[in-house]
């Protein structure tokens, strides 16, 4: 594994953790059990974007 791959994963994983962590922290601090539609859409977008990245890796053969 080269440094670029490692940095890409670290950055992307950290971004995922930051986004989810921010949403969960806000829900906890506001005492909410329910997520807003925007929060759900934002979390879902992480999963969809990651699928595209995996598709690119698969396309390389």
């Amino acid at each position, binding site marked *: 594994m080269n440094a670029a791959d490692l940095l890409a994963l670290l950055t992307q994983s950290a971004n995922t953790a930051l986004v989810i*962590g921010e949403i969960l922290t806000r829900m906890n601090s506001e005492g909410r059990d329910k997520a807003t539609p925007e929060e759900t859409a934002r979390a879902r977008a992480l999963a969809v974007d990651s699928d595209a990245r995996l598709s690119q890796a698969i396309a390389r053969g």
Partner: protein
Amino acid sequence: MQILKYLWERRTTVLGYIVTVLGVLATSDKFTESTVEWFVLIIGVITALLGHHNNAQIKKQAASPSPEGGFVRLGLLAMLIGVISLVLAACTSFVVRSYDQKVMAGYASVALINDTAATLKNASVITLGDAQEVQRKTREALAGIDTAAKLTPELGQGQLADALALLKTAQDLICSSRPQEPNCAYLTQRTQL
């Protein structure tokens, strides 16, 4: 900008606090051995870079030192904060309580598993077939989480549990045979599936 200026003027103190926090985090039992190894590696590299830079700055600015002796440049400080942000983000555990939060964690797990699979595939650690199988599983799990997200906790609990179980099989597919591989150790710790 005011905050940045404030931090910049107290950069040595700020750096001291940051290193202290990182040290406490690294020595707690919350993180895997590989995570702590990354802590040590990153902090070591940053410290060495700052040491070289500090020596160069002292030689250059001996005649007119800055209030804190020219400890770091803004670019280097930005890099330091960026790396520390990454490390802290990578080491923060999700605190999941409600049903909706489990849904959020499910989406995050899909993302983490996909990204790990992509990285391992790019590095030829896993085969093309494994990568395709992981994608098939994570897509099915994503559809399950989507369905569960639209249901009440009572109705969607089973669907969500099935999706998370599927994600576990995807994770195991790429990581069960290499649990010590750094990416897999990180993934296993973060997803907590």
